[in-house]
């Protein structure tokens, strides 16, 4: 396990540098006007940031209220016996619930947890892995089935939710295994 951890740690130094250098290099190789493409894509940064503001506000303030009222503490205490059976920290419950429903909302929760617990806390890692390893199931279903006007979705929702739930649990276990 330790060797695996070390190997992963070593490899992880390369991720961002490889992205930073690899994409432009690949672009050059494919004769893409790399600088112009970069600027073209980068223009969206501002719009994306501004677009998520209302989502961030909606989720952050509601969660902040929930915490300040003492309701979060009560919920955590009430669910702790159940959740500790499967090794799931109650702090991640909001993330697990919101993930399948709203992408920007769950990004807001990651931001909130960074503020609450600090960037290198294990909860932030778990939340980030949850965010990165699953999709906004309901949104995907709405867009794809909406596009071809399918109304009877059959087992799409249960299958999506099963996969989401397993992703949430696996995220917790994987982070525990690698960083715990």
């Amino acid at each position, binding site marked *: 396990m330790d060797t695996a951890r070390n190997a*992963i740690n070593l490899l*992880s*130094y390369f991720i*961002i540098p490889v*992205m930073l250098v690899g994409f432009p290099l690949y672009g050059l190789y*494919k004769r*893409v006007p*790399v600088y112009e*493409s*970069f600027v073209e*894509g980068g223009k969206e940064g*501002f719009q*994306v*940031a501004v677009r*998520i*503001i209302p989502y961030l506000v909606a989720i*952050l*303030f*509601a*969660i*902040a*209220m*929930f915490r*300040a*009222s*003492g*309701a979060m503490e009560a919920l955590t205490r009430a669910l702790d016996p159940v959740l500790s059976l499967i090794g799931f920290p109650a702090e991640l419950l909001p993330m697990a619930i*919101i993930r399948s429903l709203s992408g920007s909302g769950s*990004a*807001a929760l990651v*931001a909130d947890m*960074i*503020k609450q617990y600090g960037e290198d806390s294990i909860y932030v*890692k778990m939340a*980030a*892995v*949850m965010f990165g*390893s*699953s*999709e906004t199931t309901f949104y995907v*279903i709405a*867009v*794809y*089935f909406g*596009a*071809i*006007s*399918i109304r*009877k979705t*059959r087992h*799409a929702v*249960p*299958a*999506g939710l099963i*996969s989401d739930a*397993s*992703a949430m649990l*696996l*995220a917790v276990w994987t982070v525990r295994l*690698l960083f715990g």
Partner: protein
Amino acid sequence: MLNYIWAGLIVTSFVFALGYDVRDLSHDRYRNGKPLPVVLAFPEGYESAARRVPVEIRIEPRQFAEFYGTDQPPAASYPGYLLQTQEGTQLRFQAGAKLPEPLATIGKVSHSRDDELQGRLAGFSPPLAGQGTDTLVAASGVVFEPVWFVKLNAIGAAALDFAKTAAEIALGLIGVLSLFLGLLKIAEDAGIIYALVKVVRPVLRPLFPEVPPDHPALGMIALNLTANIFGLGNAATPFGIKAMEELQKLNPSEDTATNSMVMLLAINTASVQIVPPVLLLALLGMEINRLIFPILITTALALIVAIVAVRLLGRLPGYRASDPNLNPSAPAAAPSA
């Protein structure tokens, strides 16, 4: 669904806050209007004419415990000062003092600058000069400002505070978002999606048995998945929709999903990604380095679960009965969501 969860959060917060506050009020947790016995020591002497006199505030632990009904012990003494105001002599604890509950809360809602805990002195008789000791001591009581509806105020303050934080976080992301969106645009323009399609396509065959081998649907599905793998959400969606349209051409029914459609959706929701979502990159910065592998492991396992779930659920009698490929005149018994 999200509507109910969101509204539920807000309403629950209100109910809980109100509940806690009513409980505090009925137990008189903050002893509003009643004096807490304290002993004041004057290390620099006492001068009745001075507007501001430094004091050392000593609280007897036993009296404190009895007064507030708590078991958090106070420190041996707290630095503070006396202030002569129009309403009489005020006692203020120095800002930043480590106070036990409920004093900490009383201090937080106090109206003074710097959140100093402050109260009106009651039954204070100035120490007589010339007692012969270096420090003068006087017993007294302090009546703190009344505290009402702490939690109710706290949820309001938290909401305003975090609304501001939300905008700050979002604006702080602009730079990194631009960086990665720019990089991904290069990858997209370079056709990185097409580089992997040849690898992905054969793997997909067994997952979509209903689709004929040369049907364009498979190509679209492969493009959709590869775009997802590289985190190109903007490119993935159009391919996904195109794939759905192709699958719909093979669908004998108008409004019922085929097994292939459900499979495509499940694979999409499991979201296999080498490049993590741009928002996550922007939020975590370099920290993402260490999370890529956990994300890959998790997402790969979740994908397997998704595929197995689609297959197994598809065998359930209810879903078999609603399969448009098995019964072209699909019965209305299909569970819809």
